[in-house]
Structures are given as C-alpha cells and as structure tokens.
C-alpha cells in the first residue's frame, strides 16, 4: 500500500541542511554578538525540528498504511499488529529509534533555545551551536548508514511483525522515556559547555536549564523503573534487573545525573564545586550517548542489542570529540572555576553532599568497569569473558547502602559546621529506631546480614526524613496552621524543592525495602500432570486444567493453577505459553498475584503434547514496594517540578545571585 513514506528522506535532508545552517548562524552570532543572527539560527533550528517531525510522521504514516515497500515497515510491523503497537514499532528497531531520538533532540533544542534566547543571548547562541552540532551528527547517521526509509523490492505481502516480547504496555512507554531522559541531558550539557566557552560560570547555566535537568532525570528514573517492571511481567525469570550491559547503560548516566542534581545545590548555596558540576554534566551526557552507542554497536552481547549495525563505528569519534572537547574547555577555564568558599568542617552539610557525590561516582565507575571489563580483558589478554550479577551486586550493594545512610544523615547536618553534641541530639532518634528494627528483625529470625543492614538503614533514613517533616510542620503550627495535615501541606508547598526532595528520598527508601526483599525469594520448577500439585513455600500450587484457544495472531495455551494456603484457595492463576504465528516463536505470559507482603509469580516454561506442564513459580517477598516506592518518587518529582519557575523571564531572575532557600 502507498503511504507518505516518500516524504521521509527528503525531510531528513532538509532537516540536516537547516541544522547545519543553524550551527553556522549561531557560531557567527555568538562570535560577533549579532542578535539578529542568533534569532535566524533559532529559526533554522526550529525548521530542522519541524522537518524531523515531518520525517518521523512519514514513518508513522507508512507503518499505519502497512507500506511494506519500506524495509523498516516490513521488518517491524504487520497487517495484524494492533494500532498501539504499530506506533511502538517506530522505536522497535534501530533506524526508527534513531529517528525518534533525533526528533526529540532537535525539538528539545529548539524549545530550549527559544526560551532562553532573550534572557541570555550569547550563552544561548553557543548552546544552540552545540545542540545543532549534535543534531547534525544524528541526522548524518539517518541520511547515510541508518536510513529508516530504505526501499524493499520485491514488496512483501505482509510484514514480519513486532517482536512479541516488545508487545507490552510497558514497552510502549519505556523506550520513549529513556530517550527523553538521554536527550534531555543534552540541554544542560550544551548550556554548561556554552558557559565554559563564554566564561560566564556563575549559576546561570544550570538555573536556566534546571527544568530540563529535572525533566531528563525524572524521565530516566521512571524509564528505568518501567524497564524493570517490563522485565518482571514479561520475561518470566522472576526478576526485574539483570545488570545487563544495556540496563547499565541507562543506569550509569542516572547515577552521575543524581550526583549532579545534588552537587548543584552546593554551588547555589556556597559557590563551590564549579569544576565538579560542569564535569558531572559532561560525564552524564557522554554516558547517555555511550548508552545509545552500546545498544547499537553490537560490541557487547545483551538481550537488548540491535542487530550489529553499521553505525557503531560512527559513535566512537563523536564520543571522543565530546569528551576531549568538554574536558579541554574545562581545563582552559579552570582558573575561572575557583570556588568562592571552602569546606569549613568535615562535619557539615557540604561534606555530606560531597560524600554523596563521591559515592554516586564510585557506583557509576564500578558499574562502568564491570560493563567494559569484558572488552578490556579481551583486548589485553585475548580471552573472552562475561561479568555477571554476582560482581555487580558485590560492588553496588555496599555503595548503595552507604548512599542510603547519607540520605538520612545529610539533611540532619547543618551547613558549614556542626558540633558533635548537636550532631548527637539530631541523630539519636533515627539511630535508635534503626537499631530497634535490626534487633527486632534478627530476633524474628531474619538471618541475612545484608538484608538486616538494609532494613535498619531504611528505618534510620525514613525516621530522619520524617523528623525533618515534623520539624517543618511544628514551625508552621506555631505560626497558626491548625491541624497536622494543613501544617504538613504548608511545609510541602512553602519549600517544594526541599520537601519534594525528601518525598523522593522516602520513595527511594521504599524501593530499597522492595529490593532487600529479593534476598528471601523462593523458586520451584516442576513438571505437573493435570491434577498434580507442588509446594511453594507456605503455598500449594495445583495444575487443574489446560485451556487452548486461537486468535489470528497466536495460539493460546493457558494453564489454570489453584493457589492454596493452609488448604484455603487464595487465587486462581493463569499463566500462558502462546505460539505467535507471524514470528513462529513461543512466548510465555506470566501470572502474578501481588500484595505488599509477597508476590506469587508463575510461568509455564513448556507444555508436553500429553498436557503436562512445566511450571516455574517464585515467591518474591516485598517486590510490591519497589513499584509503590517508584510512585512515591514520582509524587516527589511532581512536587519539586511544581516549585520550579516556568519560562525565560523567571530564569533571568534566578540567575541573579540571591540567598536561595534550597534544601537548607
């Protein structure tokens, strides 16, 4: 069938021309301080954004029109694919996902530049030039080696359809969120570099891009959690995180970005750590692009890797230019990045923030090391090896627990310095609560030392955060807020950034509780004839029936399982093992019974022709809290974002130094 797919490639070429034009106009505009050229550059960038949107729309149109003369459409969609997943096919393959990424990049860039052009013309001109340069790189990839509009002859009658594993609601939103996160960091990155180039190294660059940073960080956070939720509900191995290289690729920029979000607070409050901050945002962006590269280069084997593409070799020089260029301008401007204050004491809020940063960076480094170790080992010794979850758990868990402890400790410590006596007073209650929880759980028979420490630290941190809320609302009650609820609400709304941040910390505590529950997981795998049972912890699982049916897409085989506890029927579970016709591939559908105490998780790993079923079942204690914690985090993010000023005018105001009330 014909479609508007023919518009795709010409639009990409037009976008490339406009991006190049924008880059030139911005550079000249910046060098000559010509506002008219900067304005023209902004228009060119907007045009480039418009043409990439047209191009992406052309591909979406081709997907919906089932125009199988386009190879991408034939490879990733089919006549029988539902409408939602037909749209998801836009990011289901390498070329389409790159087009989607580029569309986000040019559009975010145009919006960011338009917003801050009047307030900060020179800064914006340089930032625009850098963003246009990044855009040129991705548009060149799309025009040359990763063209999504390559034609296919002869035209097949139907497409191959989308991989059934990707046909899940989580997969509809997980990739766009990750891409928004990755791409979103290009805005603070470009403004940081622009600040270095112009020599305007006060807080202007990050206050005017703070909403982008928060947006990118939030998208990445939610995207990572959704990826875990997808793995949990679709892949059928009972877990949510496997330390796969591509998971790591999204996690590393998240770690450095989290460090960045914290350390900019010190620059705002105390004018310190300026070099550190520009380096962190540079690292975050390089790691984000590196993540895109890892996914597409085929240099590491991962369940996520796209077919070894021709574009991997394009990324390394690009990454090299960004890293060396970035570090180069930092080195040139090092003298201008001097702190205006110094660390007064090891026991101070500043030191706690610094320790937090060091730990986040150590975590990112160890994960990077584990991810790249196979490549390094192969280059040095010639042996090929694989680094598995035991390594990552061993390095990451201790660092993460230290970070958790600091999450509780940091807000209790005052700026500049704190006397040991004052420290003792604020830390006493959280310390007692944490210890009581550890002792109580140990007496209750929990033997895992790691889990005990984790639960104890969760209690410590939750109490510390709680005491901050209590202190805040006490002040508001004294000032006349009547009830506890209205005092709490006032506390939250008067300083959204600080208390929204604490809500995010509480979400993290809940997530850690859920992760620690993983230490107590139970697994059974058994072959059951209809009517047979197996024990699973305190439960009995009985395979009562096999139900078969057919849809145009798949043959459905459903095992009906009775879940009993103490003889009482608590749930009927219906895991499936289906055969997808278009892909000629079986696909398991997991059945999960979830509650705050524990999940019961059942998968059929195979059916025998005589009707016997191989059932794999898990008890995953506390997993529910991971998703609950993520929702609390999202709530905190909304509170923080609602406290941020919108638009360029307020950004100007914020660049004027003022005694900001940030997480004080």
């Amino acid at each position: 069938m014909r479609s508007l797919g023919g518009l795709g490639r010409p639009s990409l070429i037009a976008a490339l021309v406009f991006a190049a034009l924008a880059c030139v106009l911005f550079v000249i505009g910046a060098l000559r301080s010509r506002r008219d050229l900067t304005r023209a550059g902004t228009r060119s960038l907007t045009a480039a954004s418009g043409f990439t949107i047209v191009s992406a729309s052309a591909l979406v149109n081709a997907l919906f029109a089932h125009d199988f003369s386009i190879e991408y459409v034939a490879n990733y969609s089919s006549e029988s694919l539902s409408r939602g997943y037909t749209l998801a096919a836009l990011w289901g393959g390498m070329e389409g996902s790159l087009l989607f990424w580029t569309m986000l990049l040019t559009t975010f860039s145009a919006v960011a530049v338009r917003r801050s052009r009047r307030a900060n013309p020179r800064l914006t001109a340089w930032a625009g030039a850098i963003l246009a340069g990044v855009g040129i790189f991705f548009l060149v990839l799309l025009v040359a080696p990763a063209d999504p509009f390559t034609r296919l002859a002869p035209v097949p009658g139907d497409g191959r359809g989308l991989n059934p594993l990707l046909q899940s609601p989580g997969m509809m939103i997980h990739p766009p969120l990750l891409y928004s996160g990755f791409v979103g960091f290009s805005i603070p990155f470009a403004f940081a570099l622009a600040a270095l180039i112009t020599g305007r190294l006060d807080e202007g660059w990050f206050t005017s891009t703070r909403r982008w940073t928060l947006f990118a960080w939030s998208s990445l956070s939610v995207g990572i959690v959704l990826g875990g939720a997808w793995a949990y509900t679709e892949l059928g191995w009972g877990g949510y995180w496997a330390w796969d290289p591509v998971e790591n690729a999204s996690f590393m920029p998240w770690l450095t970005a989290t460090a960045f979000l914290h350390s900019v607070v010190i620059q705002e409050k105390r004018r310190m750590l300026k070099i550190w901050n520009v380096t962190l945002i540079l690292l975050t962006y390089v790691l984000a692009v590196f993540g895109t590269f890892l996914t597409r280069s085929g240099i590491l084997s991962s369940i996520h890797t796209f077919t070894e593409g021709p574009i991997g070799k394009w990324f390394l020089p690009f990454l090299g230019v960004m890293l060396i260029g970035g570090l180069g301008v930092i080195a040139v401007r090092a003298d201008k990045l001097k702190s205006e204050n110094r660390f007064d004491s090891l026991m101070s809020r500043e030191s706690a923030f610094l320790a937090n940063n060091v730990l986040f960076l150590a975590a990112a480094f160890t994960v990077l090391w584990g991810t790249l170790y196979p490549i390094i080992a192969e280059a040095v010794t010639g042996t090929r090896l694989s680094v598995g979850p035991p390594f990552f758990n061993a390095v990451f868990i201790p660092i993460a627990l230290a970070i958790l402890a600091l999450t509780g400790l940091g807000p209790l410590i005052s700026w500049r310095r704190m006397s040991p006596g004052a420290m003792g007073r604020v830390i006493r209650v959280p310390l007692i609560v944490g210890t009581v929880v550890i002792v109580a759980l140990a007496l209750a028979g929990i033997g895992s030392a790691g889990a005990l420490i984790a639960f104890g630290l969760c209690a410590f941190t939750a109490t510390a955060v709680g005491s901050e809320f209590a202190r805040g609302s006490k002040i508001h009650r004294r000032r006349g807020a009547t009830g506890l609820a209205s005092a709490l609400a006032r506390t939250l709304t008067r300083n959204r950034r600080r208390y929204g941040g604490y809500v995010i910390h509480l979400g993290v505590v809940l997530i850690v509780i859920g992760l620690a529950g993983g230490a107590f997981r139970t697994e059974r795998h058994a072959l059951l004839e209809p009517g047979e049972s197996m024990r699973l912890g305190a439960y009995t699982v009985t395979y009562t029936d096999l139900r078969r049916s057919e849809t145009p897409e798949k043959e459905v085989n459903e095992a009906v399982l009775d879940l009993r506890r103490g003889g009482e029927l608590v749930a009927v579970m219906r895991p499936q093992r289906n055969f997808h016709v278009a892909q000629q591939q079986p696909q398991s559908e997991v059945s999960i019974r979830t509650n705050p105490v524990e999940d019961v998780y059942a998968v059929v790993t195979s059916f025998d022709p005589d009707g016997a079923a191989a059932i794999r079942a898990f008890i995953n204690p506390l997993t529910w809290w991971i998703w609950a914690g993520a929702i609390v985090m999202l709530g905190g993010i909304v509170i923080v974002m609602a406290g941020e000023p919108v638009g360029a005018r307020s950004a100007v105001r914020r660049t004027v130094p003022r005694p900001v009330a940030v997480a004080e």
Partner: protein
Amino acid sequence: MAQPLETATSPKRRAKFVVGGALLAVAVPTLIVWALSRPGAASFYVTVSEAKERGVTSQDYRVNGTVVPGSIERDGLVTTFRVTDGETEMAVTTDRPLPDTFKDESEVVVKGDLEGSTFVATEVLAKCPSKFKAKRAA
C-alpha cells in the same frame, strides 16, 4: 578529572581531604578486585572445540554455539540438545527453563561445565528481543 578538593586551603584541612581521597583511591579498586573474585562474577567464553579440549573443569564457563537442527529432545523438565561451532559438536543437557527463542538453529550461549562428554548447563541464553530482526520476506 575535576578536583572537588580545590577548596582546602590550610595544610591540616588539605591533609584530611588528601587522606580521604587516598582511602577512596584504594577502596574502590579493592572492592572491584574482591567482587571480580566472587563465584560466578566472571565466566570465560569458549568455542565448542575449546570446551571439548578443556574437558572437565570445576568452574562454570560459557560456550557459544548453534543448536543442531533436530537434536532437541525433551523428557519432562530435562532438555538435551547438541550445539556446534561449525566444526565440533557437543551434547548439552539442562533442567533449567529455556528462553522463548530457543529452537533449531538458534544461536545460544550455554553456561555450565562438562561432565564426561556432556555439558551440563545451569543456564541457556538465546539471542533476542531487539536483536530480533526479521528475515527478509520473499
């Protein structure tokens, strides 16, 4: 890389941060080396021919290969099949769940150790999701 310690001015204060930095410079590599020595942390990839040469080890390693068409047999939870690297074939047995993309001619990685001439796999991986690329429809 950036120096977060640039602000320490007095010698005593500087010393504190230098000690802290040095501790960290030792702690992180130590953590990494310790973690790499944990059981299952790192496993070697070998070809089918190399696996046969190595024979029985007491360590897990990973073998890359292609499933020989027609060799898959299931008996309850136990699946046996043969993998090949194009030159040598090796029998594999496992009682672990197999990935959905596991079938004749799929490219697999089996993790485990040889027992006699049979490779006992504790994990079977197949190349998949976004790796999935449709064969060109004729």
